[in-house]
C-alpha cells in the first residue's frame, strides 16, 4: 500500500528533532535520511604480499609440525641414530639462541646467560631421568589411537597457536600443551627411553623455543620458502603420497586462501552510525 504523500508543503524546512516538525507527516522521510551513515571505517585494504606472508605464519607452523613428524618417523624406523638427532638439533637450537640473545634482542648481561644455562641443564637432567616414565606412560594404548590422538592434538596446537594476532581464541599455553601431549603419545612407540628423551627434547625445541625466536623475526618470503622446501624434501624421503597431499595443503593455505581473502574484502560492508554504542576509554583513576 502507498501512503499518501500529500503532506502540507510548508516553507519551513524539516529539522531532525522531535518537537518542531508540525505539519509534516510522521512517516515523512527527509533527504537527509541516513546521511550520517558511514561504511567500512576500519577496513584496510592490505596488499596481497602482506596477506600471503600473514597466511605464511600458519604454513610455517604446519611445516614445523611436518618436520617434527618426520623426525619421529626416522627415529621410529631406526633410520637415524637418536644421538645424531640430539646433536644436530642441539646445535641448531644453540645457533638460534645466539641469534636471539645477541642480535634480535638487546644484549643481555652475563647473569642471564647463566640463568638460561641452568634452565637447560635442569630440563635435560629431569627429562633424561623421567624419560622412562614418559615412554611407558601411554604404552598400553593401541597404536591407532596414539596416531589419531597425536593428529588431533597437533590440530589443536595449530588452532590455538599465537600467530601474533590478539584474538580471544589464541592460547599459547593450550597450544604448547597440546603439542607436548602429542609427543608424549608418540614417544611411547619408540624403541628406548633415550629415543623418547630425544623426541621430547625436539618437541620443546620446535614448539616452545622456536616460536619465541620466530616472533622476533619479521615475516620474510625467503625464510618461509626455505622452511616449506625443507619440509617438502624431508617428507619426500618418507612418503611421496603425503608429499603431494602436503603441497596441496600448502598451496591452499598460502596462495588460495589469501587470494579469496583479497577478493572477498570487496564484499565487506560494515555499517556505522550515530546509533552505535559509545566506547568508554579507560582512564587511570
Amino acid at each position, binding site marked *: *500500500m502507498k501512503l499518501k504523500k500529500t503532506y502540507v508543503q510548508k516553507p519551513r524546512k524539516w529539522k531532525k*528533532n522531535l518537537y518542531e516538525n508540525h505539519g509534516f507527516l510522521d512517516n515523512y522521510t527527509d533527504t537527509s*535520511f*541516513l546521511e550520517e551513515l558511514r561504511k567500512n571505517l576500519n577496513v584496510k585494504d592490505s596488499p596481497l604480499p602482506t596477506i600471503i606472508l600473514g597466511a605464511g605464519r600458519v604454513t610455517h607452523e604446519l611445516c614445523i609440525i611436518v618436520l617434527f613428524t618426520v623426525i619421529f618417523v626416522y627415529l621410529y624406523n631406526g633410520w637415524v641414530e637418536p644421538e645424531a638427532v640430539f646433536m644436530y638439533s642441539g646445535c641448531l637450537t644453540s645457533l638460534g639462541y645466539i641469534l636471539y640473545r645477541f642480535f634480535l634482542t638487546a644484549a643481555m648481561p652475563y647473569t642471564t646467560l647463566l640463568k638460561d644455562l641452568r634452565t637447560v641443564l635442569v630440563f635435560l637432567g629431569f627429562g633424561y631421568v623421567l624419560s622412562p616414565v614418559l615412554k611407558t606412560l601411554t604404552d598400553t594404548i593401541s597404536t591407532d589411537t596414539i596416531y589419531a590422538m597425536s593428529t588431533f592434538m597437533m590440530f589443536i596446537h595449530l588452532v590455538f597457536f599465537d600467530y601474533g594476532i590478539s584474538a580471544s581464541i589464541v592460547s599459547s599455553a593450550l597450544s604448547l600443551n597440546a603439542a607436548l601431549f602429542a609427543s608424549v603419545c608418540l614417544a611411547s612407540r619408540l624403541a628406548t627411553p633415550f629415543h623418547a628423551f630425544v623426541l621430547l627434547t625436539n618437541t620443546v625445541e620446535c614448539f616452545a623455543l622456536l616460536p619465541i625466536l620466530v616472533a622476533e623475526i619479521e615475516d620474510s618470503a625467503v625464510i618461509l620458502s626455505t622452511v616449506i622446501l625443507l619440509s617438502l624434501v624431508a617428507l619426500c624421503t618418507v612418503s611421496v603420497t603425503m608429499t603431494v597431499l602436503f603441497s596441496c595443503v600448502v598451496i591452499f593455505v598460502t596462495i588460495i586462501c589469501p587470494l579469496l581473502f583479497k577478493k572477498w574484502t570487496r564484499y565487506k560492508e560494515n555499517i556505522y552510525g550515530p*546509533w552505535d*554504542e*559509545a566506547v*568508554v576509554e579507560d582512564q587511570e*583513576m
Partner: protein
Amino acid sequence: MHHRICMVSDFFYPNMGGVEEHIFNLSQCLLLRGFKVIVLTHAYGDRIGIRYMTNGLKVFYLPLYVMYNQCILPTMMCSIPLLRYIFIRERISIVHGHSAFSALAHEAMLVGRLMGLKTVFTDHSLFGFADTSAVITNKLLEMSLSNCNSCICVSHIGKENTVLRARVHHNRVFVIPNAVDTDIFTPDPSARSVDKITVVIVSRLVYRKGVDLMAQIIPDICARYSEVQFLIGGDGPKCWLLQEVRERCGLQDRVTLLGSLEHSQVRSVLNKGHIFLNTSLTEAYCMAIVEAASCGLQVVSTCVGGIPEVLPPDLIYLTEPNVQALLVGLDKAICDYKSGKVVPPFKCHERVKSLYSWMDVTKRTEVVYNSVAKERNKTIGAHLRSYLRSGVWPFLLVVSFCHLVLSFLDWLIPTEKIDIARDMSPSAHINNCFKSEGDCEWSSKKKKS
C-alpha cells in the same frame, strides 16, 4: 474509526522502564479517547491471569515460560491457542507489539497477521551492526517485520536504524516520540539546597548508561567545586563501581546513593537537584532527560543516539561521550548556574509541556492505526512471499505450520463457539470511579496519580 487494540510486550508493570511507561500511558490515553485497549504480557511471579489497572485497562498476564531477561521462550506455536482465543474473545482489530527484544510481541504479531489482523510494531531501542548477536537479532527482526503493516520509532535515529537493520521501507516507518507526564514532573525549587549545588543522576546503573564515565567524573568535579554534591538514584550491576569510587575518594558526605527508586519517588529526587547528568552510551529517546527538564533542571547529557533530537538547545548541554567533554559540559552548567544564566524552572517546565504530551503521542499513533486499518489483508501465499524476502527459508515452514495449527483450531473450536467479552465503556467507568471516590479496585494498581 473505532479500533480494538491489543498491546503486546514482554515488558510491562511490575517491570519498570521506558517501554513499560510508553505502553501504559499510550493505553490510558487511547482508553480516554474511547478505544478499546488490552495489554498482553507474560506472568510475573504470582501475578498471573487477568488484572485491571487504572481506568479499566485489562491486562492479561499469560502463563508462559520466561526464559531470559524477562523474555518468553520463543516457541512460535505453543502460545497460538491462547493468543487466538484472546484475539477472538476481545474482538481485536490491531495487534501492537512493543520492543524488538520481546519474543511475545513477535509471536503475537505473527499469530495476529495469520488471523487477518493488522499489526503495528514500536521499536524502542537502537542496535549496532558489528557483533554476532546484533547480526542475529537484526535478522530475526527483519523476518518479523517483513509482514508488519507499520512500524513506529521513538526518534529519527531510531527510524534510520530500524530501516537499515530490518529493511523495512521508510514510508512504513513513523516517528512518534515518547512523552512525559508533565503534570507529575513539576518543578519545586523550594526543595533545592540553598548553599550547595546538587547534581542528580537517575538511571539504572548498567554499562550502557555510562556508569564508567560517572565514576571518573564524580571525583574530578568534587575536587574542583567544594559546593557540589551528587545524588544518585537507581541500582544495577555496576553499583559497586560508584560505591568503590566514593569509598576511595572519601566522598561519603557528598555522594549519596539512593538505591532503586519507585517511579513515584523520581520527582522528589529530581526536585532536590539543580543539574541533571545523563551519561548514556546509547539511547533511542531518553525519557530521563525530559523528566528532568520538566522538573526545571539544567540537563547535561552525552550526545548519543536520539538524545540530540529530544530537547531544544537552550534546555540541554550536549557533550561528546567522554570524560573530558562531560567535565567541560558540567563546568559550563555550574558556571551558568552561579551567574544566573539559566532558564527558570517553571519556564523550563512550560517549554517541555508544550513540546511533549501523551495525548499528542496518542493522536499521532491513531493516525497510524487508521492508515493501517485501511490496508487490505494478505493471503497466506502473499504472507509467505514477503517472508521469503528476508532470505530465511526455514522460517516459511514455521509460518506454514502456524497457519495449519490455526486452521485446525478454527475447526476444533470455531469462532462462533468462543464467548465474546463485552466491551467496557471506559468513560462510564471513569465516571463511576469519580462517584465512588477512589475505592474502586482499578484506581490503585499503579501509583501514577
